[in-house]
Every structure is written in structure tokens, then in C-alpha cells.
């Protein structure tokens, strides 16, 4: 049984600390919470720029309790993750998010599997966003796609470690659903595609989708199967309003890292 209970938030390294006024995401999230921590030691191996060691985060919680929270961490890094290597997907009934955005009128298909329409760019994060019929098919309120250089270690992480349910899997594609630890305990779709250069490193402060945030019952040990693929950061503390958490990062500096948080009841 996985120690991880579910997904809690998506972490973006962003040129800006807040969503710009009029951002379509403002319709979906509460007013932000701002926190600042010195995580220089635990995040040392995850960052490209040492100047970004202090974590100044902005957390947007889902207004209707049916989405993961969005965390923005401002970064001065000039390296960006390729914009087509990750993105957020929404179901058809969330079309209003796309009002006022420049649409590329694209209908894309990843790995001959995942269809997207209304592909748009949210420049302030930055991220592509799109609508996918897969979300309604699997009763998901939101989803994300990511490109990974090593699909087997990512499948091991999501399915065997994080407790995600595999919907489909091929040699270069996998689709999972995972519970979100929000008020509605909604379902989130994660789609991974094989791609990118396995020799290329990406860090948490590179602009783009940096990490998935997870809630767990206790800080898990890294399973033997994943020790060759992932490293674990030293444990660190996080205070969000009056709640205290302990956390670690599982990271490979190749794809998105994973922040695993537990309630700190000490």
C-alpha cells in the first residue's frame, strides 16, 4: 500500500510571483497565500541558480475544491523547460477558462493517444493549457501531460510508488488517474510521454512545471526499484498559514520532481 494519499498541488517556477490580473486561472482559485522559507540546504541539488535558494511561494487553492492547488515560485533562471513538454488539461465543461486567451486553434494528439483542442498559452506561468475529452471519459476535473526521458522509472514512480491507477500503458505512453487531496477528493489525469533528451538536465528553478506536490501519511522511503532513478532531498519544514508540514523532494533532475509532504504533528 502506498504511503502517498494523493496529489496536492502543481509547482511552477515562474518569472512572476502572482497570476497577472485577469488571468483565466483567477476564476478557479482563491486569493493567494504568500510564504517564504530558507530551503537552501535541502534544495541545493535541485536548483540551477543558487540565488533562488530562498523559496518565496504563492499558493492558490481551488475555489470549488475540485482542483489541485497551484504553487508559483518566482525564478530568475533563464533556462525554460520546453513549452510542449508539459501542460495542463481541462474538461469540456471548463471552457470559460479559455475566454480571452489567444487560441492556436490546434487539435493535437500526443503519441496517437491523447487528443487536445483549444490549445492556448498562459504566459504568466508559463504553460500550455488545453481541453481534452479524456478527462470526461475518466471523470477527471483536471489533468496534466508531461514528457519524460525514461518512461519506465516514471511509470514506477506514479503507479507503484504514488498509488496512481494505470489506465493505459505502451512503451512510449502511459495514462494514470490519481486522487487529489482537495475538498472534493477529485480525480486528476496524468499523461506521460516518452521524449526529450535523456542527457539533458532540468532543475526545479528552470521556468515551467517544476514539481508535483503530494500528501502522504508519513515520509516514505525510496523503494529499491527507484533508487537508481531518483534521489531524495534532506527533510525540511513548510508552514502554510497555521498548518505545519514536513517534506522531502524525490528528484532526478531529468523530469518533474516530486515534493512529498506530511502533516507535522510534533
Amino acid at each position, binding site marked *: 500500500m502506498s504511503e502517498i494519499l494523493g496529489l496536492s498541488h502543481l509547482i511552477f517556477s515562474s518569472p512572476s510571483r502572482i497570476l497577472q490580473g485577469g488571468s483565466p486561472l483567477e476564476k478557479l482559485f482563491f486569493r493567494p497565500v504568500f510564504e517564504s522559507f530558507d530551503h537552501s540546504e535541502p534544495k541545493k541539488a535541485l536548483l540551477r541558480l543558487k540565488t533562488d535558494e530562498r523559496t518565496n511561494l504563492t499558493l492558490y487553492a481551488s475555489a470549488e475544491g475540485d482542483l489541485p492547488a497551484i504553487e508559483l515560485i518566482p525564478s530568475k533562471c533563464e533556462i525554460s523547460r520546453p513549452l510542449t513538454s508539459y501542460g495542463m488539461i481541462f474538461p469540456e465543461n471548463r471552457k470559460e477558462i479559455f475566454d480571452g486567451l489567444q487560441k492556436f486553434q490546434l487539435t493535437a494528439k500526443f503519441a496517437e493517444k491523447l487528443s487536445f483542442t483549444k490549445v492556448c498559452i498562459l504566459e504568466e506561468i508559463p504553460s500550455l493549457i488545453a481541453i481534452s475529452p479524456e478527462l470526461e471519459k475518466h471523470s477527471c476535473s483536471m489533468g496534466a501531460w508531461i514528457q519524460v526521458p525514461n518512461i519506465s522509472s516514471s511509470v514506477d514512480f506514479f503507479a507503484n510508488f504514488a*498509488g496512481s491507477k494505470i489506465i493505459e500503458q505502451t512503451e512510449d505512453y502511459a495514462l494514470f488517474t490519481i486522487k487529489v487531496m482537495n475538498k472534493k477528493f477529485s480525480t486528476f489525469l496524468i499523461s506521460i510521454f516518452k521524449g526529450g533528451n535523456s542527457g539533458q538536465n532540468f532543475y526545479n528553478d528552470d521556468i515551467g512545471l517544476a514539481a508535483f506536490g503530494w500528501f502522504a501519511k508519513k515520509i516514505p522511503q525510496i523503494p529499491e526499484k527507484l533508487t537508481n532513478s531518483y534521489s531524495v532531498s534532506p527533510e525540511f519544514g513548510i508552514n502554510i498559514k497555521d498548518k505545519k508540514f514536513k517534506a522531502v523532494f524525490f528528484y532526478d533532475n531529468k523530469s518533474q520532481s516530486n515534493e512529498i509532504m506530511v*502533516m507535522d*504533528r510534533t
Partner: protein
Amino acid sequence: MNREKIKAIIEEITGRALERENELLGSGILDSMMTMMLVGRLEEEFGLNFDAEDFTHHNFNSMDAIKKLVSDKMNLL
């Protein structure tokens, strides 16, 4: 008996008297973080072990549902 204990734990977590026993999530009395704290306290108090599958909106949206979840778990011990 369990009902009173559960109610006391919810009041301890939310920091206020529980004025209603249904729509706990829907009305905002509990949020996701409070639900996790509640599960931690229920595990301590009753010696239970909750799984990811137990975290559903239905299981935590009312006192009756929480009590039933706790009772079902205790019956499995």
C-alpha cells in the same frame, strides 16, 4: 460514545463548536488539510489505519459517515 469523541476531535481541529453534522466539507467546516489532520487524530484515538481509498467526499461530509467509517474500520481490527 465514538460519536462524541469524533465530534470533540473535529472541534479540536477546526477550533470551533460543531454547529451542524452534515455538509462538513460542502459548507467549509472541514477542508482537505483539516481532513488529513482528522484522519491522523482518528488513527491515534482509535488505533486505526486509513488508506488513500478512504479519502472520499462521502466519507467525510457528515458525522454519520465519519462514524460509520470509524465503526467499519474498528470491526476489521
